[in-house]
């Protein structure tokens, strides 16, 4: 019994650093990069869905409909295992970034669109009344207010993404969960390893949650509550 727990403690200790390092070098960058590209897509899509241009509206609505209506896992499989049949071969990491970005973009375009629409019409009118163009009004007056509204849901989405990156294991990306699977393969301790990796995900999401609350408090400054 003692020997067994010694062995387990050894596995936990030995694997902690490799897991954490993989988390910091794969999971975190994968999250940040995908989220940044996804946000970019989200803004573009939100603008397109708010525009009076029917073609832009059509394309963006189709994109949101498809991505939100299909499982992320299936999307990743299509990009990584499916597209080569059409002669498009994408490495595992870029495929993961593409899949996650598309997903972040689709979900958050709705968040951003709603946030922009939540800014009272009078704010546009006040901006126009001082002679601003549509672009100036949007950038200087509307977006700063909309972003305040959008930050909490965007924060949630960011933290979900940290966890969702574990799906990249299924398309051979050696991120943290994949690493845990590899270690399991020669230690035969799935319970220990998977719990350990869960704890590291929990650490990551807790740190990011704290970060998010800080940002939120800062943005609340000018609003009476």
């Amino acid at each position: 019994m003692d020997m067994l727990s010694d062995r387990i403690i050894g596995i936990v200790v030995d694997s902690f650093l490799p897991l954490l390092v993989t988390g910091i070098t794969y999971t975190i960058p994968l999250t940040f990069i995908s989220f940044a590209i996804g946000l970019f897509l989200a803004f573009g899509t939100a603008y397109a869905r708010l525009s009076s241009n029917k073609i832009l509206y059509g394309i963006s609505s189709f994109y949101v409909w498809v991505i939100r209506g299909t499982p992320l896992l299936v999307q990743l499989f299509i990009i990584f295992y499916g597209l080569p049949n059409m002669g498009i071969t994408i490495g595992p990491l870029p495929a993961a970034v593409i899949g996650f970005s598309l997903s972040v973009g689709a979900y958050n375009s709705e968040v951003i669109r709603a946030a922009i629409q939540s800014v009272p019409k009078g704010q546009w009118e006040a901006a126009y009344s001082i002679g601003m163009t549509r672009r100036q009004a949007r950038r200087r007056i509307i977006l700063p207010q909309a972003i305040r509204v959008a930050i909490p849901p965007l924060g949630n989405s960011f933290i979900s993404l940290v966890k969702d990156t574990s799906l990249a294991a299924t398309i051979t990306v050696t991120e943290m969960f994949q690493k845990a699977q590899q270690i399991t393969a020669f230690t035969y301790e799935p319970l220990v390893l998977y719990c350990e990796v869960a704890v590291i995900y929990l650490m990551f999401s807790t740190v990011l949650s704290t970060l998010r609350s800080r940002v939120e408090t800062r943005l609340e400054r000018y609003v009476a509550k």
Partner: protein
Amino acid sequence: MIEIRNLHKSFDGLEILKGIELTVEKGEVVVIIGPSGSGKTTLLRCMNLLEIPTQGYVRIGKEELDVSTKWRYKEKVVLPIRQQSGMVFQGYNLFPHKTALENVMEGSVIVKKRPHAEARQRAEEMLAKVGLADRMNMYPHQLSGGQQQRVGIARAMALDPSVLLFDEPTSALDPELVSEVLKAIKQLADEGMTMVIVTHEMGFAREVADRVIFMDAGHIVEEDKPEEIFERPKHERTRQFLQRLQT
């Protein structure tokens, strides 16, 4: 300063302004009164093109616009006209994420591209003028309604407009805060600012107006000096409107 000819405005096929003719001279203060829904706000918004007339001619300062059936909205055409006027809103519409000073500077810096220091100096002057020199660094939610509305006036004035437009500037205010805003407007009138004011404050209209316009159902029914309108209204509808106010 303002010339409006044969102005029509419809919303979804329903005609709200039915051929407005109006001129306002430089330095003149014109007050528009009339029952709810008569089109006062719509007329004011057509002057700075927050609403685009369905048809008609609008000139503000030296900028003009003639809307015919073939006319299509272009920002390039609308902006120069809009920049001739400043607007003060019923609900203030200050930018909540900016301080009083930043609210007033915003147009100078972003639209007029004035250097920051110059814009700041101008904004400080304007805020001092409406009696808010000591409140410049506060956010709108830290100010009373009357103070917010005075920031709104300073914001509109900071761009040196040819005309100031007011849409019921005091009707969202608590009664005890009305007079401080009216005082600020009166001061601008005394300085020779050209203004068009929609208001339900008849006492104030009488005091500040060079000319009063009575609107009803999308028409200008009657316009004259305040004494004439209030004491010897020529039209039955004007009489009824004023009578109803007194009771």
